[in-house]
């Protein structure tokens, strides 16, 4: 297989996506299929080409002015948990703390 099981699981971890044990095999098989397919790019000779991105050649700069995009409803309205003006999540735990 072109992708290792550990690599797939590591990518899922980095992406904060939990993969139930019963789905791991299928995910690894799908990844292998896709990676095998896209690996054909490796054989494309690409000596003198830069990366290409469409769109304008340079980024416009915004004048430094207080001009916020208005919110039709406050952050609280969409927040799953909100107390005293703050978004609330569980403690950091494994993510380490300061």
């Amino acid at each position, binding site marked *: 297989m072109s992708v290792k099981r550990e690599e797939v699981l590591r990518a899922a971890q980095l992406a904060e996506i939990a993969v139930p044990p019963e789905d791991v095999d299928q995910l690894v098989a799908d990844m292998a*299929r896709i990676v095998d397919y896209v690996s054909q790019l490796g054989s494309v000779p690409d000596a003198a080409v830069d990366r290409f991105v469409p769109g304008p050649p340079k980024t416009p700069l915004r004048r430094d002015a207080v001009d916020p995009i208005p919110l039709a409803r406050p952050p609280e309205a969409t927040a799953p948990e909100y107390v005293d003006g703050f978004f609330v999540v569980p403690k950091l735990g494994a993510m380490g703390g300061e």
Partner: protein
Amino acid sequence: MSAIRDLAAAVADGTRPARSVAAETARALERTGGLNATLDWSAELLEAQAGAVDESATKGSLAGVPVALKDNIVTTDQPVTCGSRLLEGYRSPYNATVVERLRAAGALTAIKTNLDEFAMGSSTEHSAFGRVLHPTDPDRVPGGSSGGSAALVAAGVVPAALGSETGGSVRQPASFCGVVGIKPSYGRVSRFGLVAFGSSLDCISALGATVEDAARVLHVISGADPRDATTLAAGPVELLPPRQDLRGVTIGLPRECFPPDLDPGVRAGCDRAIAALRELGAEVREVSLTHTGYGVATYYVIAPAEASANLARYDGVRYGQRRLDGAVDVRGLYRATRGAGFGAEVKRRIVIGTYVLSSGYYDAYYAKAQRVRGLIAEDYRRLFQDDGVDYLFTPTTPTVAFRAGERTADPVAMYLADIFTVGACLAGLPAVSLPIGRSNGLPVGGQLVGPVMREAELLAVAGALEAIVPGADEVR
């Protein structure tokens, strides 16, 4: 040939109140509910929007015209789900730029259409809220990811709709459903308010029953936006009348897009369209887009990579359907929310995207794909700038609409549906798909691709082709 032009004119001069259009549209939506093409619509909202149009003294160019919105374009007055459980019930606190422009022109926009989850898919089978049925054959898919928008237009419920393209997600369903789909140049339409999938590829695009219908919508929504740093410094796409003939126009046929095993119905449709182009006086010749074969692979490295970052914000912290499932810390929150909220295809793409960006693989995959993208763009540039080709003509899709369930087992099989559409997305070029016939009753689509920023001219050519090729005719 434009229902929109006629409708807007009638609303403007008072012969047709927008309210009656709203009511009729609501009835049509009721009637076609079985297609599952919509995720949210409201008769009250349509009525209210129509009322505002009727009451206003000046009428815009889309006065009273219903334009459905793919449900990855944000509005404040309806939920936006992106076809995902994760955003079920989410209400955006701001409107997309394209929505503001449509409403300023008087359009009725209170219809959100079904899509593959987060726009990732080619059949609309990956929506968390059920697949969309093909408007004429319920066992088949309408294409994707903008399947809901294409189906509604094809079913005659609305004269136009917005979709979005990343790899072909408007042209492909347009081709499957027998309607027109226009992808503008990258940067021609503001992405502010389009839920991002592949940021360097995403283009809000227009679907319409005819070229002129879609063009009228594109005209309203296009033009530079200070809120999107990737928009081109240009005004709206000009509306040009269809060309009377194509004398002096050179049309290239890339041989890589006409492989020997092309579906016979698609080939027959293309043959007829090519003959029509010649009849109109165009010089038609075979050309080569050498790197066509690498387009899907290139796309399926770049788009998931960008998506993996774009979808990191869906973490259950500030919005969305949060899940804890016994989680005791933040990481648990993330994993439970994203695990439950994202469907299988989205997860696949996020994992692939993370993989190709990760340390040790970045150069071989992501950096490499960006360079191959340059080769693909160079193929088009050489034809348009050096070789005297004005436009390219190809089939839009290698097949007609396939059956539901036919391609869901193998992700790559699904990806290959995009083989003829990804090129224009990778190169940032404008392209239009229009119906060029039917094969056993199923629509066949052909597409024209043009140089960057030449939407108006491209559409004038498409209009000429449309006028002499009856899209509804059987070609086999």
